């Protein structure tokens, strides 16, 4: 594939591209977010000027001649949205744009098609008349994801994903809730931080996609219950009381009008927070259930949304059994010595052949490996167990380690130690115990499960076979496991497009049966059984 290269903020960037794409489209495909625009990329605004330094491109288009002088064109200056490289091309960006904190959601993390979402995602031919937009927001502990829809045309305009600014109040939910409970001022600060993160994302969309924020008429927000209570500054203190985890918790904001003013959206806009099922089951899970249509399935289906708190739902074809397992942040690379989020530089995939001790790994992005993310850990552990370098208790054979660590990549000093394995074992045992607990409650066993839906970014690059080998997923044929990506956002979009139809949510609520894992009488024994790095079996 040909390469487009340029320098941005003193960094050399290289992007592979398919022939036929414009420079803007090539830039937009990456997460560099190097484009600027005052229009939808139809050559109308003339802002996205670039200089072609080397390489052949298509001839200047009519609308470029309108914005650029002959002299400029002779010096290789062009509009990024109109110029198609015909070979390797080196360019210089003639506008200044800093790297955004808000990125497009990678396509592979957004797999589910909502029924109405059959149109192309980026329709650039639409006119810029007064339109009305709707925004869906999935408020996560770590990330916030948004999607903007043009409501009249049922057209998905764009999406964004970025960090929830609340991380400065603690990485985990408990720490943030405790901080909020310390004082009303703290709680206010925490709420405003998230409101500002959303503002920042909307502004990014406004600037880069030329969307008039005042035309946003509807906002629908889903999230885990803790995040919703912190956003609405309401009932967050209940979240620290385990007795409330099974109860409904009101997260309806008293005054969402303030948020609208901050976000500079239409003063008439409706802002709705989709109410969670209970303390430990947020409306993000409701949205996920909606998007995956799990309660319409005729077969027994298991839904797992991996995270620090992994939500698990079992549809037994009549009832939806729901629980949440607090296994810690291992699936997001947390608590692991060389662990990291699934970001550029993360080892996310490891391949090997069964009869050879060699392996090779793949890294996200073009960067040098910096660490290992959750899906990389799954592969690494499956590899180590299969090669008998690690026993199913989670202990290394002494000859394979150097100073207690297995060296995965000597050059980049990436290794895995016993503690890392221990942390991962606990996380996966918590999830497996959640699954066993739901099965027990439904009077079923693992063999009854016909289909598994795995949600969340962790699931996207998950190797299903490896996950099965170490007991992270039940043993079920690979084709019956669906890696569904960000289902919470997809479900939230369905709610937005249905005018936040209460019936959709009510149907799910009426079928849901909440199970508190800490009341599971067999917890200790089942947890112990699930700590082994072995395939999940029916009770030993």
């Amino acid at each position, binding site marked *: 594939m040909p390469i487009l290269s340029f320098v941005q903020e003193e960094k050399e960037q290289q992007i592979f591209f398919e022939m036929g794409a414009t420079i803007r489209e090539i830039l937009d495909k990456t997460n560099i977010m190097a484009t600027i625009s005052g229009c939808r990329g139809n050559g109308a605004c003339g802002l996205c000027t670039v200089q072609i330094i080397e390489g052949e491109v298509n001839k200047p288009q009519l609308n470029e001649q309108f914005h650029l002088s002959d002299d400029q064109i002779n010096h290789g200056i062009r509009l990024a949205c109109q110029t198609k490289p015909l070979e390797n091309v080196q360019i210089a960006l003639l506008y200044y744009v800093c790297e955004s904190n808000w990125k497009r959601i990678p396509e592979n993390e957004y797999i589910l098609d909502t029924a109405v979402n059959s149109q192309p995602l980026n329709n650039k031919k639409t006119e810029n008349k007064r339109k009305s937009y709707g925004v869906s927001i999935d408020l996560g502990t770590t990330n916030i994801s948004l999607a903007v829809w043009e409501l009249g045309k049922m057209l998905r305009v764009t999406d964004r994903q970025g960090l929830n600014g609340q991380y400065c109040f603690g990485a985990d939910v408990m720490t943030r809730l*405790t901080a909020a409970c310390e004082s009303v001022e703290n709680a206010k600060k925490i709420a405003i931080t998230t409101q500002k993160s959303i503002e920042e994302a909307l502004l990014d969309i406004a600037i880069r996609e030329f969307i008039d924020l005042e035309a946003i008429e509807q906002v629908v927000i889903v999230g885990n219950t803790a995040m919703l209570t912190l956003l609405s500054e309401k009932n967050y203190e209940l979240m620290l009381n385990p007795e409330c985890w099974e109860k409904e918790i009101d997260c309806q904001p008293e005054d969402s009008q303030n948020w609208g003013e901050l976000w500079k959206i239409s003063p008439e806009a409706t802002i709705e927070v989709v109410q969670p099922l209970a303390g430990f089951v947020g409306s993000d899970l409701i949205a996920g259930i909606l998007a995956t249509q799990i309660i319409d399935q005729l077969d027994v289906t298991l839904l797992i949304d991996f995270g620090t708190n992994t939500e698990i739902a079992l549809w037994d074809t009549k009832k939806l059994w729901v629980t949440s397992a607090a296994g810690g942040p291992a699936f997001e690379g947390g608590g692991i010595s060389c662990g990291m989020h699934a970001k550029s530089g993360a080892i996310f995939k490891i391949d090997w052949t069964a009869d050879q001790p060699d392996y090779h790994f793949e890294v996200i992005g073009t960067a040098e490996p910096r660490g290992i993310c959750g899906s990389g850990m799954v592969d690494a552990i499956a590899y180590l167990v299969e090669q008998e370098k690690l026993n199913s*208790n989670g*202990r290394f054979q002494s000859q394979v380690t150097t100073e207690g660590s297995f060296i995965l990549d000597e050059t980049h000093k990436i290794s895995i130690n016993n*503690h890392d*394995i221990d942390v991962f074992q606990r996380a996966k045992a918590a999830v497996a115990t959640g699954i066993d607990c739901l099965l027990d409650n439904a009077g079923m066993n693992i063999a009854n499960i016909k289909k598994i839906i795995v949600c969340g970014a962790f699931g996207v690059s998950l190797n299903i076979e490896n996950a099965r080998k170490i007991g992270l997923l039940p043993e079920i044929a690979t084709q019956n496991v669906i890696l569904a990506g960000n289902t919470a956002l997809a479900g939230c979009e369905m709610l937005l497009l249905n005018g936040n139809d209460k019936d959709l949510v009510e149907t799910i609520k009426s079928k849901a049966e909440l199970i508190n894992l*800490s009341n599971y009488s067999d917890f200790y024994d089942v947890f112990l059984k699930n700590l082994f790095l072995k395939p999940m079996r029916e009770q030993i």
Partner: protein
Amino acid sequence: MTEETMKLLVEAIVVGDCTQSLDLARNLCDSGISAEEIVVNGIEVAMAQLDEKCTMEQFNLLEIMLTGRAAMEVIKFLFPSGEMVMARKGTVVLAVLEGDVHDIGKNILKMILIASGYQVVDCGKNCPIEKLLDVIEAEKPIAVGLSGLIFPVIPMVKQVKERMQARGIYGPKIMAGGAALKQSSKENLNVDFLAETAFDSVKYLEQLAGGELNE
């Protein structure tokens, strides 16, 4: 001969092999070894070895749980009535206080304490302070162990000593441990000892018994 069997029993408990451990314990009993001896020379030695094995970076929850389970099975076999005739080292009361429902840490400490010769009274998880104080009053333990995985339980832990003294109980030392608590300090928590691992608590109790910490 029995010495050899005792060694094998220690090994079997350390690797967490329940069946093997029970077989060996049965053999020892059959050859006339007393339950007390099996506890002191078998189970307690195994616990000491596990302690060595579990330095911070080598810690593996599964292995500890397996060893604990094997030790408990042997104890159950030796004392089928459930009566720990030989809680010769005194009583320890354990609890996970109100606001926290994570009790694996406490359960592990419980196994290690029992296997090390202590009588344990377990107040369970999400335990109100009043209930804990009632138990302390009735059992007169040498120490109270408080385990906490999540931060919100900290304010509860802080109250225990004062409220205990308000009831006129001064004897028992208070030990704390667990993911959230061990990030604090013993001064902040107002406890007598803050344990990094379950084994630290055992060592602390042994020092108590040796009189090293008595004011």
